């Protein structure tokens, strides 16, 4: 099957227009929250890498669809059949191989980001997170085991969250950190976060856990090292007295 040059020009034009529109939607709408963790930065790279590939594929499909629907529409009195094109081996190989290569690239980029995000630093902060219907509790075993209703973290220091639940499955998520992990009763699951800026966020529950699921929120506060140490020691002293 031959494709004339004129139609290629038109296809490319439609594709570029659609691609530009999709890119505008991607760039001008504020999709991702502020990036406040190292792991989040790697996740954001995977997201944009994948989005770029998706915009490319979408533009191609949209271009061919729009062009075909306009150009090949049969006039109302036309009863004839189209040319009996059964296939084209080269094209079929291409549209099998190219997507395979693209998804392989996505898999590789993702696996690397996942591996990096799974590395533990020796000096990390450890926090035991307990989820229950419908609240979060945070314990600091390295500071005498005091508990808190707020998750306070140190800027620049990796935290290992050790998550569990008392009743049903809950899930820990801070959108600005990107990282998410379920808290499962009977298990301890782990999540690593390295905050990169000070600030206040909220941890929300992202696994349906019953009537209070929507309300299960706690504050997350990232502090400078000195401030965090001061807070942690005062909490520790509070439990010792």
């Amino acid at each position: 099957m031959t494709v004339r040059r004129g139609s290629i020009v038109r296809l490319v034009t439609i594709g570029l227009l659609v691609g530009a529109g999709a890119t505008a939607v991607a760039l001008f709408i504020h999709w991702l929250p502020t990036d406040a963790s190292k792991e989040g930065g790697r996740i954001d790279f995977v997201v944009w890498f994948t989005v770029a590939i998706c915009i490319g594929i979408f533009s191609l499909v949209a271009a061919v669809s729009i062009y075909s629907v306009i150009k090949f529409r049969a006039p109302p009195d036309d009863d004839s059949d189209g040319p009996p094109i059964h296939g084209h081996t080269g094209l079929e190989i291409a549209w099998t191989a190219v997507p395979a290569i693209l998804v392989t690239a996505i898999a590789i980029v993702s696996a690397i980001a996942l591996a990096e995000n799974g590395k533990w630093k020796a000096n990390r902060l450890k926090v035991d997170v307990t989820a229950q219907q419908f609240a979060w509790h945070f314990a600091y075993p390295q500071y005498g085991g005091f508990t808190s209703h707020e998750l306070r973290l140190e800027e620049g220091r990796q935290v290992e969250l050790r998550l569990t639940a008392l009743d049903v499955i809950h899930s820990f998520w801070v959108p600005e950190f990107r990282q998410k992990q379920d808290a499962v009763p009977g298990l301890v699951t782990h999540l690593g976060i390295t905050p990169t800026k000070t600030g206040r966020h909220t941890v929300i529950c992202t696994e349906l856990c019953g009537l209070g699921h929507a309300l299960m929120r706690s504050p997350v506060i990232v502090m400078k090292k000195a401030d965090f140490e001061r807070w942690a020691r005062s909490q520790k002293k509070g439990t010792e007295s």
Partner: protein
Amino acid sequence: MTALFFGIGFGIVTGLRALAGWHPVLDWLIIVTVGGLIMAPIGFLAGIGGFDYWTRYALGFPTRGEDHSGHGARSWRDYFRVNTDHKVIGIQYLVTTIIFFLAGGLMAMIFRAELAKPGMQFLDNQEYNGFISVHAALMIFLFVIPAFAGLGNFVIPLMIGAPDMAFPRLNALSYWLLPIAGIMMLSSVAVPGGAFGAGWTGYAPLSVVGTNGNVWFNMGVQWAGASSIMTALNFLVTIITMRAPGMTFWRMPLLVWANFTTSLLVVLATPFIAGSQFFVMFDRLMHTNFFNFHAGGYPLGYQHIFWFYSHPAVYIMMLPGFGIASEVISVMSRKPIFGYRLMALSLCAILVLGFSVWAHHMFVSGMASWLRVPMMVTTLMIAVPTGIKVFSWLATTWEGRLNLSTPMLFALGFVSMFVIGGLSGIMLGAVPADIHVSDTYFVVAHIHYVLLGGSLFTIFAGIYYWFPKMTGRMYDERLGKLHFWLTFVGFNATFFPMHIIGVQGMPRRVSDYDPRFAGWNMFISISSFALGASFMVFVYNMVVSWRRGEPAPANPWRSMTLEWQVSSPPPIFNFDEIPQIVGGPYEYGVPGARHAVFNGARERELEEARAP
């Protein structure tokens, strides 16, 4: 009979409990489960005559000659009976599933009204969780899966040149299981504590320790699953053994290939959801400890077993749609399907790969973390055969003579909307991206693009396409186009913004949300009402056209497949003479090409050719 069997169940439970000394003897949850959710449906099916033939056979009575009195529809009353005609059963399925679709859709509009503004408007949290759970359960088990079964039921025997399905009585029984399942799920709202509220996914431990309404889901799924398995078995035997002479596998229309692969998915996978729901029910009612972590149970085990079915389930909900799209696009483009063999093989590839990806629903579940990378690889790989299909449909339209009728609009709309859903699926397949968007509105957007833009659009394409064959009347084309455009716009307006709020940080299954999402939620809710209203155009068109539409010719679409070579509607046993298949089903544009000839015609042609 229904009441009698309830009574038998009541008797069994109270009798055993009294004998064993378990108090209270009158444990109503167990009595209603055994008596109402298990025995009463059996009684109902027996009462309508669903088991008559097999019971007589098992009891050793002489076999009654089949007089076909239970076959075919001569009046509207036949549609309310146990009927062995696949054409009647197909229409019973379609009407029933549309009713449940409207019920599920109404629920969606109710909770979208609640979500229009932050804060709680008129629902409480239990009602909210119940509505979202029942909405999804109805849409999946009482609409998409059985609607495809119904369309296939009507079309497949005709398409392969058979007089009916291999097991007509089993076929009738599998239809009647559906109203039972639907009524069971709906009636959960009347259970003390409210409707099941753990989502359609029903994760343990919440589904075990949550309200008793969950049992109605545990059992409703069994009845719907049984229906699905029986139908799939029927399709497999029919397609394998009853094709007309000359119809090799490589001359089957792609809808037949699609139903064949889907049926394999159903029979292999559905028992797993049955098992997962039984485990949850047993943990609640019989105090087993499958998921009771206090006694060594493993909550994540539920998710593995559940998703081992529920991932293939999404292909069960899409593959028949792929088949419908191939039929409609080929006929309405007046061109052969581009790459027919690869299209058939890609269905087989999706079937096989579909069993290897289930844990992509569990990337953040706390399962063994090494499992995430292999599951990511298989998940991304499934994009390849799916992509082959999308590109092939586009290539089929290339240089065609496109008839942009209502079925074609829905088929083309499906291709573009399914691509969007598929691309968001690729994003979800990349584990780091999934970690951020899992359990957010991004997932809700994805599932509705593939289920509504994908499955629902192809169901509509199929209903409009085969409406003339099923009813003998043409639907109103202008109303059909109006339906398409209203639905297309309403659908995108409702679900596209969900991608945005999901990425921005709004979780799913929440009855309330942070006020920063208020603007988009109001927009989505209003759009959803418009989407709901668009379906009224469809219902009106169906009802009015069935009663008063233009009589339809045998082959209004000038298609080559077998179902269009008989009258609209077809004769009671489909074919007056067995067709002989002599070529492929999509040979448009090839002068003199035939898919099927009828022997009488063939002999006459040969005689004329021989005449001096």
